[in-house]
């Protein structure tokens, strides 16, 4: 079977750690407990570091929590941050489910944002169009452009066996350059590196739009994109676990040879899964551009949501419903980062949590034993 890996401590030390593969499958609660334990361990570790640099860890944590969940206002901001992550995480989870390593959610997100912007800026529809037409058309544009950006690596893989990791990664850079071309050149507003603002009818409705009738919503920027994202997550869950196509995806993901034997067309499904993945990321781009930014501009669009989505998808074990929760946590961390300091402590804690979660996954597969040096080696 597997070999056990060892870390040799200094020769004089009589004990050492030994990692052994766990062959029995641990019960379900164990993995949940490990994950919670990992987060707690990460917070303690972060706390120690905060204390070492001279701050009060409790106060810092309280501040971070306050900055992301403390009031309805910041909670709303957290949700705004979580929305694009949710879309890219869903995009990644559908592709990863089939063991298609789509690293291109970033590019697909950008192309979705571009497609939605083109509706206003090209312009495909006049600025006076009603929101009822504007928003569905922009959604369609975002989905189509994202899907197209997923289709390219998909077809390359299905037809020519081109590695999708490389092709989808490359397409990210093309997408950024493409967006820059339009932002800096064609659609530039008076030479600034951004397009003109979209007309209000091309904005996704936000909670603050209802501030007149519901006073609680005043100033809250949470937009319709979140609701769409949650809806998509639920639909995706049904697609994966309850639909015929989802069954095919799970079968291909687990054993492509068996799927082929069951008469499933793998090439077709590779292309379809990549297109769906791209479409979801593209819809995320549309949601961000029409819900938050309201104009095409490089830095807030190409903010790395596609890459965060990869991490979130993994932490959620590719489960779309769990991805909602994990996205909100990541949104909180992103927000707290900006509230406390531009980068630094919150980023560090984010990193520590990640490392701890990955380590906990390791513990799920290996157990650690302390052995006397004499006994072994």
């Amino acid at each position, binding site marked *: 079977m597997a070999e056990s890996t060892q870390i040799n401590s200094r020769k004089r030390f009589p004990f050492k750690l030994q990692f052994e*593969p766990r062959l*029995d499958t641990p019960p379900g609660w164990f993995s949940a407990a490990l994950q919670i334990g990992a987060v707690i361990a990460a917070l303690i570790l972060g706390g120690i570091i905060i204390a070492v640099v001279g701050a009060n860890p409790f106060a810092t944590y309280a501040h971070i929590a306050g900055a992301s969940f403390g009031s309805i206002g910041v909670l709303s901001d957290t949700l705004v941050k979580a929305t694009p992550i949710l879309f890219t995480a869903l995009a990644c989870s559908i592709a990863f489910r089939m063991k298609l390593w789509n690293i291109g959610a970033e590019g697909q997100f950008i192309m979705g944002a571009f497609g939605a912007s083109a509706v206003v800026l090209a312009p495909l529809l006049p600025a006076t169009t009603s929101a009822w037409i504007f928003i569905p058309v922009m959604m369609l544009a975002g989905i189509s452009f994202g899907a197209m950006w997923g289709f390219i690596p998909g077809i390359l893989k299905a037809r020519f066996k081109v590695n999708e990791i490389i092709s989808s990664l490359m397409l990210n850079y093309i997408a950024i350059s493409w967006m820059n071309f339009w932002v800096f050149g064609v659609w530039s507003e008076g030479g600034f590196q951004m397009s003109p603002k979209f007309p209000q009818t091309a904005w996704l409705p936000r909670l603050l739009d209802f501030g007149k009738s519901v006073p609680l919503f005043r100033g809250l920027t949470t937009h319709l994109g979140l609701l769409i994202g949650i809806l998509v997550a639920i639909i995706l869950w049904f697609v994966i676990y*309850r639909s015929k*196509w989802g*069954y095919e995806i799970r*079968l291909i993901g687990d*054993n492509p040879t068996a799927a082929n034997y069951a*008469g499933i067309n793998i090439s077709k499904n590779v292309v379809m899964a990549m297109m769906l993945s791209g479409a979801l990321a593209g819809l995320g781009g549309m949601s961000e551009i029409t819900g938050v930014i309201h104009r095409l501009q490089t830095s807030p669009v190409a903010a790395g949501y596609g890459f965060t989505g990869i991490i979130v998808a993994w932490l959620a074990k590719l489960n779309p419903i769990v991805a909602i929760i994990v996205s909100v946590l990541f949104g909180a961390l992103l927000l707290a980062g900006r509230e406390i300091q531009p980068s630094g402590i919150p980023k560090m804690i984010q990193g520590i949590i990640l490392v701890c979660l990955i380590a906990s996954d390791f513990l799920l597969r290996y157990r650690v034993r302390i052995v006397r040096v004499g006994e072994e080696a």
Partner: protein
Amino acid sequence: MDHPETQTPANIPLVVTMKGIVKRFPGVLANDHADFELRQGEIHALLGENGAGKSTLMNVLAGLYSAEAGIITVNHKEVEFHSPKDAIKAGIGMIHQHFMLVPSQTVTENILLGMDQPNFRMNINQYDQKIAELGQHFGMEVDPKAKIWQLSVGEQQRVEILKMLYRGANVLIMDEPTAVLAPQEAEVLFTTLRTMVADGKSVIFISHKLQEVMAIADRVTVLRKGKVTAAGVPTLGSTRQELARLMVGRDVVFQMEKTKQEPGEVVLQVQNVHAENDKGLPAVRGMSFEIRQGEIYGLAGVAGNGQRELSQIISGLRKCTEGKILLSGKEISNQPTQFAIENGLAYVPEDRTHVGSAPNLSMTDNVIMKNYRHEPISRGWMLDIPQAQHFAQKLKDAYNIVVPNIDTPVRLLSGGNLQRVILAREISGNPALLVAVQPTRGLDVGAIEGIHKLLLAQREAGAAILLISEELEELLSLSDRVAVIYEGRLMGEVREPDLETVGLMMTGTPLDQIAAPIATGAK
């Protein structure tokens, strides 16, 4: 067998004892206070039904699992293994049914892999030499410089054995080593094992083939539902029937009676088919035959003569370069796999883990692989989960599949039970044509009896069956006609086959060249 005659059993030292081993998995008690003793220089067979806990018990001994209770001693010293590394240090090495070799590396590299000994300044030539010598000593010739992918299954197994011997194993555990071997290869393995025990090593041998066990093993221990029902019974003086009864607790029928019946209409037509193997070399070179309703067509042949490729073209997993295949009159060759499935093809592939199942998916997901496209398992684009579960539960009960529940991932099933899942799935669709490749590989005698009954029932129900097997006994007793494949061609076809004729054809003699007395003697 070959141990020194002067010693009486009483004073042959015990190398391994296991006492009161308990190992539980969620929902199963795999070993229930099992005891086991291994003497020095013996070949000890471990028998038992599928899921009886043989592999589990041996995994405990090899340090892969740790038991919840029980004591293990090696050379009279109590030991506690936490990893295979600990076990090999105590001289115990296990060879699993699925080899753990790196295909792109040489024999020597594979043997040295994971060892601390040679550091990065290693001189590979010197090790090549050592390994060649070790192989010669035990009668296992392998080229140390050969890459694993170039080796046959039998040779790969030798590499696994050498790997363990090189690490100083004194006790070799082999989990169903002959399941993947052709009879000739198995003979070679037995010679090796005999050399090893003559050298003072001991072997634990898991197998379902009782004939083989009687031939090679000195003693047997039988497990049933995790408990030991017979400990260390000498094979000398016991019969296959007795061993079978010990295993399954009832009498087993080895020879099936099949009813006389007239074959119906032609179901499968194979017309001058040619195909290439994975390496692009011709594997099937012009085969033609027909199978009718209610007929079992047995295809014998030494492994690697094109039977794998033939079964793949029929089931749509491989393209044929020439000729065509008709299923109930419809051309299915070079069509999408799904086309043949929709037209009533069922296929039990040779490789149950890599082709026939999705290991991490549940039993339910695995049994609906062929019928999920239609009602009642699905409706429109949705799966009907309760119906799928109902179907899985029905198969579990009807085919006696031992599994904690239908949501269990099939990678946790014992080998024989996984095979039952696949057979249950394929047969339950009442296929027009059933292609079964080695359908009883790895099954216990009771289960084999069950599968033979199922195949005969399908025959009576009017299915056409292509049975490809290396088990000649099985093939001859079930088939209405037996054909032999050799280097991609049919050597001939007989209605009342006898071992001698079939054996001659398997080595490449066409039927019409076989001396008349034998051929007519077959009638």
